[in-house]
């Protein structure tokens, strides 16, 4: 495989994790536009742990995921009081807050960025991406995921059938933050250099786009979305400077034809029904 395609493949893996982090909170009906913030926390914390503290990457990723998860829980609580576009705006604010925090954190290079990480293989990135995707797909068949869907559709009714909507929503935020942090740690060790601008608003939007494009009701939708979001602009290269315009057009067309994204639950059900009962 050429280094060019290897680079793309790594991007897909990292974007998949970012998209999954958006998918997890979206499953409870909460749209987050600030997951690049959690990704940034993960990137900086893992890099600090591997470069400055000097521990191996895997435990560093786990520590960063737990730390970001706790921050996610903390962010999740005020988020409970917000819905729809208000929540989206608040999470956007959180993302920008994290970015400007790292911009001013001179200990980690500030606007100059941070380097010294060792480069990781695609296999390593994809082991994490596949493991998390699998974890999400297993969770999707659990009681807790049904409860998340119930909260997503009607959180008042969910409470009135006995679901603790607070822990479900806040827990989803924590889990999503942990996944985004892993994406960040992998990103840092793939590019071996990070700067606050890597974790800006556009990155958060990419995550959301991947989920919407691939399908926001099933985990594998994030995979399809990540693939499309990375590869489509490449395949449209023959259009030169027009390729992003073409990409935008395709995105709009896609939303008009298939609003729920490429994959959805009924597609999976159709396959499931074809299996002998």
């Amino acid at each position, binding site marked *: 495989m050429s280094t060019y395609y290897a680079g793309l493949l790594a991007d897909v893996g990292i974007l998949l994790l970012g998209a999954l982090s958006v998918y997890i909170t979206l499953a409870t009906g909460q749209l987050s536009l600030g997951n690049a913030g959690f990704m940034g926390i993960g990137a900086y914390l893992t890099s600090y742990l591997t470069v400055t503290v000097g521990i191996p990457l895997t435990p560093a990723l786990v520590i960063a995921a737990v730390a970001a998860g706790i921050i996610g829980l903390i962010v999740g609580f005020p988020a409970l009081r917000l819905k729809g576009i208000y929540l989206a705006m608040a999470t956007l604010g959180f993302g920008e807050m994290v970015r400007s925090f790292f911009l001013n954190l001179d200990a980690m290079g500030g606007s100059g960025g941070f380097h010294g990480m060792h480069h990781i293989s695609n296999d390593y990135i994809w082991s994490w991406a596949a493991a998390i995707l699998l974890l999400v797909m297993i969770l999707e068949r*659990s*009681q*807790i995921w049904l409860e998340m869907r119930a909260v997503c559709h009607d959180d008042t009714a969910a409470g009135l059938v006995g679901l603790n909507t607070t822990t479900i929503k806040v827990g989803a935020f924590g889990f999503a933050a942990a996944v985004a942090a892993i994406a960040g740690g992998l990103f840092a060790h793939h590019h071996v250099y990070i700067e606050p601008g890597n974790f800006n608003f556009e990155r958060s939007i990419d995550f959301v786009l991947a989920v919407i494009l691939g399908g926001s009701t099933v985990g594998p939708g994030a995979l399809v979305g990540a693939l499309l979001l990375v590869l489509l602009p490449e395949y449209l290269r023959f259009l030169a400077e027009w390729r992003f315009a073409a990409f935008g057009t395709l995105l709009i067309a896609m939303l008009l034809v298939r609003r729920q994204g490429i994959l959805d639950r009924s597609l999976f059900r159709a396959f499931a029904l074809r299996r002998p009962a």
Partner: protein
Amino acid sequence: MNGAGQAPLLALSGVTKTFGGVRALSDVSLEVLSGQIVGIIGPNGAGKTTTFNIITGAYRASKGEVLLEGNNITARPSYQIVWAGISRTFQNIRLFADMTVWEHLLVAQPHDGFSLRRLLPTHWANPAALHRARETLEFFGLGDVRDRIARSLPYGMQRRVELARAITARPRLLLLDEPVAGMNHHEADGIRQLILKLRDEGISILLIDHDMTFVMGLCEQLYVLDFGVLIAKGRPDEIRTNPAVLDAYLGQVA
């Protein structure tokens, strides 16, 4: 069944609810004994659904208490009230969009807080929940539509799914908000049979409805609300001839 001196299953005492300056409920007290089917009737806006919302913790009472077997459950979060043993259905059916009937029966399964079982695929991690859901499916005659999206079913069927979902939480008291609204006689009779069957299973019922024949034929005890005030209580035959009720509820017919 309910010995003297034992606390009633549900008791509201002096419940008042104000929204801004508007009094939706004034000093309402009522009781449901174990094994009873009790009805609340009254004109639109009388405060019937508000009463339900206070019992289930959706609203907080401005004054007064809600007791479940003597335990104060006033203003506890909704899910804790469900765990304590009170389930409900809604006036406007509130099923979860894009969930199948089967999923509705699984989502409301009682559980003991955080357990690993909730995070694993229900299919093999929680056979007890599957068993209970299957039983409920049978009980409500929903076996044939198990894998259909609940919202896509005919109206009467959706009511059954909602009822089944409420039962899944294994309540001791079931609150039904207009269970036969918009139903034809045949469907309403089906629901009536179900309610009687549930009572025989040991579930007490508090219901609201406009259909007087339905309520009179089913309930042992009735409470009549008018403008948030309890104006009468008694057996159906007492209520039917109560002049205050006739005046308020049936207008100036008498």
